[in-house]
């Protein structure tokens, strides 16, 4: 039981990631592939955030300052056990913005493909390209 409580979060991320991977591999529609990619990235973000958790009364990584010192603390009184690990938060903060940027690029590419071929199904695009090269 302790094993399940300690590890079940990884299984949730694995399930989410596999839904995204299946969408990327097996779906034929390019828009659905993009949705799968976004699900994959979301599961990675959740996984990284979960590695920053520390049990035992740790709070968010913002130092609670002394009001007499303008919100700062006396050096040497901050201990790592009091605060969550800030590093995954930093990495995922930038990763979320990059995820939005890649999603925008992907949707722009999809719009160009739809204008060019009139469809988003992968095999239909391959057929149209074959006919174009033959003629």
């Amino acid at each position, binding site marked *: 039981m302790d*094993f399940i*409580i*300690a*590890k*079940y*979060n*990884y*299984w949730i991320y*694995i*399930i989410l*990631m*596999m839904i995204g*991977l*299946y969408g990327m*591999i*097996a779906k*034929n529609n390019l828009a659905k592939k993009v949705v799968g990619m976004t699900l994959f990235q979301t599961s990675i973000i959740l996984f990284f955030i*979960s*590695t*920053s*958790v*520390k*049990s*035992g009364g*740790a709070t968010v*990584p*913002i*130092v*609670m*300052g002394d009001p007499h010192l303008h*919100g*700062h*603390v006396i*050096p*040497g009184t*901050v*201990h*790592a*056990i*009091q*605060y969550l*690990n*800030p*590093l*995954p*938060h*930093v990495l995922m*903060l*930038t990763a979320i*913005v*990059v995820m939005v*940027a*890649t999603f*925008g*690029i992907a949707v*722009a*590419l999809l*719009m*160009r493909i739809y204008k060019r071929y009139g469809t988003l199904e992968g095999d239909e695009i391959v057929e149209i390209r074959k006919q174009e090269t033959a003629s």
Partner: protein
Amino acid sequence: MRQFLGFLVTMVTAALLIYSTPEMPGWGDPNSPASTHVSPRYIEKADEETHTPNIVTAVLADYRGYDTMGETMVVFVAGIGCIMLLRRRQHK
């Protein structure tokens, strides 16, 4: 066939990943490898060295500022790429 192959690959990958989970640190473990290498240094010294109580901001823009500069350039290039792909101006 394509769906079946994709399902097979997905299941094999999921089995491998679940097989590796007992090696991972447990939920909320304060001694996990991610929390012991460099992050205690950041937590203990961030406010003293940069006068920024928000450790995330201090690490984002100061200790790892070069990384964030790269991320900003990625966002910039993404915006330029969208403009190049979609913006078509009608000549008057």
